[in-house]
């Protein structure tokens, strides 16, 4: 059994590496499809043909793009993410702190939203068709149907501008104490929780409802199990597969999708970095960011797949 799981994990890791390569190439291809290159974009309005040609020469952009891509891949094998075209800093330096920030935000949001969403999803499933269930449905759909930037802006207006309880900006460098930390992260985390919870709530609800009608849950009832025991001990473990998939898909949003939250709260994370990189056609930076997103995504779905398999002894 144990070695079976190990084998499975190794196999999945191998497949993940291949997926990563596909993504890297797709991103490369996409980037080279975009009109304009780093030189002309950096020069912006000042991009005269001569100036662009000169800068291209100086930045070694005249080498074929595919060659630069391959060189970057080779560098990657040595743990070198390359140097940004746009500002000549090592990509690792540019990404470093921001990646940590992104992870922090994602981590805190996960800690808050996953338990919340699962609780709401499970309770809604238990009380299916009740007023409570409907309220949860309406609220969760209502909350995601409000655009993210509006939720964030409303939160700022309310908590920062009118009530002055929280700062409007999440300046991570000003966190010196736990209270600071709470104050800084409160609004971004709440906004993101709003955004990602609905999917988890709905999918948890759907999955638990499916398992609640199985004979073994009925059997648990006939053993005198309480409602919570039936759900937590019998229904939930068997609904875990779809639930962890939904959780993984929702959380993957936290890696690359938080651009709006980063913008509004001025939170220096990696999503904005990627947008900047695309805007400047900064291939090494785009590739590195894309790789991080992809790794995050692959990590999550692989973890989800493995949890799903582990939770079902039949698949082990």
């Amino acid at each position, binding site marked *: 059994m144990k070695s079976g799981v190990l084998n499975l994990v190794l196999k999945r890791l191998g497949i993940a590496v291949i997926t990563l390569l596909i993504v890297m190439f797709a991103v490369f291809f996409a980037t080279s499809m975009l009109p304009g290159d780093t030189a002309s974009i950096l020069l912006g309005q000042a991009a005269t043909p001569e100036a662009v040609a000169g800068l291209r020469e100086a930045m070694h952009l005249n080498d074929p793009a595919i060659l630069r891509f391959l060189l970057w891949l080779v560098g990657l094998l040595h743990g070198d993410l390359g140097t940004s075209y746009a500002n000549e800093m090592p990509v690792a330096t540019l990404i470093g702190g921001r990646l940590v920030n992104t992870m922090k935000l994602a981590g805190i949001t996960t800690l808050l939203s996953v338990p919340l969403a699962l609780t709401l999803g499970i309770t809604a499933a238990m009380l299916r068709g009740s007023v409570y269930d409907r309220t949860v449905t309406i609220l969760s759909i209502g909350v995601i149907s409000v655009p993210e930037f509006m939720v964030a802006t409303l939160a700022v207006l309310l908590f920062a501008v009118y009530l002055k309880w929280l700062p409007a900006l999440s300046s991570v460098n000003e966190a010196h104490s736990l209270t600071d930390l709470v104050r800084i992260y409160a609004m971004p985390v709440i906004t993101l929780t709003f955004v990602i919870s609905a999917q988890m709530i709905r999918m948890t609800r759907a999955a638990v409802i499916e398992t609640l*009608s*199985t*004979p*073994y849950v*009925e*059997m*648990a*009832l*006939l*053993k*005198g*199990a*309480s409602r919570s*025991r039936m759900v937590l*001990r*019998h229904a939930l*473990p*068997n609904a*875990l597969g779809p639930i962890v998939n939904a959780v993984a898909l929702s959380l993957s949003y936290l890696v690359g999708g938080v651009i709006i939250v980063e913008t509004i709260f001025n939170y220096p994370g990696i999503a904005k970095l990627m947008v900047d990189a695309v805007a400047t056609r900064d291939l090494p930076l785009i590739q590195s960011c894309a790789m991080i997103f992809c790794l995050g995504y692959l990590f999550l779905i692989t973890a989800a797949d493995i949890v799903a398999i582990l*939770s*079902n*002894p*039949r698949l082990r």
Partner: protein
Amino acid sequence: MSNLVEVRNLRIEAKTDSGRLVEIIKGVSLDIADGEIVALIGESGSGKTTVALSLMGYARPGCRITGGEINVSGRNMAALSEKERARLRGTDIAYVPQSAAASFNPSSTVMEQVIEVTRIHKLMPPERARQRAVELFRALSLPDPEGIGARYPHQVSGGQLQRLSAAMALIGDPKLVIFDEPTTALDVTTQIDVLKAFKSVMRAGGVAGVYVSHDLAVVAQIADRIVVLKGGEVQETGTTAAILSAAQHPYTRELLAAFEPKPRQAHADADAGTKQLLRIDNVTAGYGAVRADGLPLIRAVDSVSLVVEKGRNLGVIGESGCGKSTLARVIAGIHPAAAGDIVFDGKELQRAARKRSQDQLREMQIVFQYADTALNPAKPVEDIISRPLAFYHRLDRQARSKRVDELLDMVRLPRTLRYRHPSELSGGQKQRVNFARALAAAPKLIICDEITSALDTVVASAVIELLKELQRELGLSYIFISHDLSVVEAICDEIMVMYNGERVEQITPDKVTAPTHPYSKLLFSSVPKLDPTWLDGLVRDPELVSQYGHR
């Protein structure tokens, strides 16, 4: 109040999806005294499971207890709050479900589920509960009583699961145990051990029981009294001896009469130019990793050869887990053989069904053992049965509808059932829908895997009659897998005995009294008799039991 259980005028209604109410239990009353075992017998679909469940104050989804009282040790289960009911379930009243396989949570170990009752009601420390469970496993003659608890449900055979669910019910020392067809998946040799265990446990603890079964011989061994149900009404109640020897009600008599199936008449054209329909040679198949020689690690079927002649039937019997279903799947091409040849109707068949032609697929139909999982839960019965009609025979809508009615009639199902989903059927009803679907294909050979295990004697013998009739009219052949020897005897021209994946003997029905192989001897001597004293008086050859009993 003198009796442990007093049910008065119980009414249970089911609500169909149009909101129409159907009364499925129409005023049932019954009593069970302390320590008494009452058997519920009767027609499949008569409401046995429903009545049994109502004793726990429970009605299946879509059903509702609408009237009457269900007093269990003085409390009306129907009127209690859900919380109070939960307190009684598992401790005062325990339930052994009809389909044990589906009633185990696939994601937790068997032991956890067996001792769960003690956790829920805080009856004893888990350590103590585990010890007790192991004692019960041993009493129920489960193999490896110490280790079996650590397995997951899918690692345990169907017959074993049935016994494990009995252990699950008994661990809370209930005052009343409800057994819903607890031995349907057991071969007769195992059944004996289990029945003995039930009897001793119940007798020792003074436990009362409700025993739902279609098997009159089994009921005869275990029950003190018998309640006969039909169409949601009690037909007759009486002590076991009285019912068996002097039944009053015509339906009961019918049931009893049907218990002794008419033995198969020698085939009219038995000798007239028999032709081979199916021949398999040295087929080997199994599960697990494939070894270097191309054979699987675990061999469930080991070099089995057999022949089925046109218009003749082959019975396959043997212990639970001996490879009967696997053999059926191999022939049908669902589980391609690792070695061996299959010749059907003169032509060599591909091992995998995928590669066989549509006609070949149609001509050989298989009826799966577990009707629960073989029916698509999302489709109504009529869609399920009419699909082969549309697929193989391209019948139009009207013709299909007509044929569905005919098929339902053939398997003794009311026509109104056609609109229901499988979840709204009783165990035996599902089994018959499953069979009707195979008939719809109009095949030459039907592989029947336990198609009567959930049927009462009347319906079962009707189905057997149907099989014979079809055979006469259309020259069909059957491979008949069953644990029920009398049914096999009734229909089969040849009987193959399997043991541990191998074919140990092939005999003809008229010779069942004199099998040559020792395992066959043990098997045939274990068939229960309608005589209530049979079990207590049974003496088996201890050597045989130790050699072929449960490992």
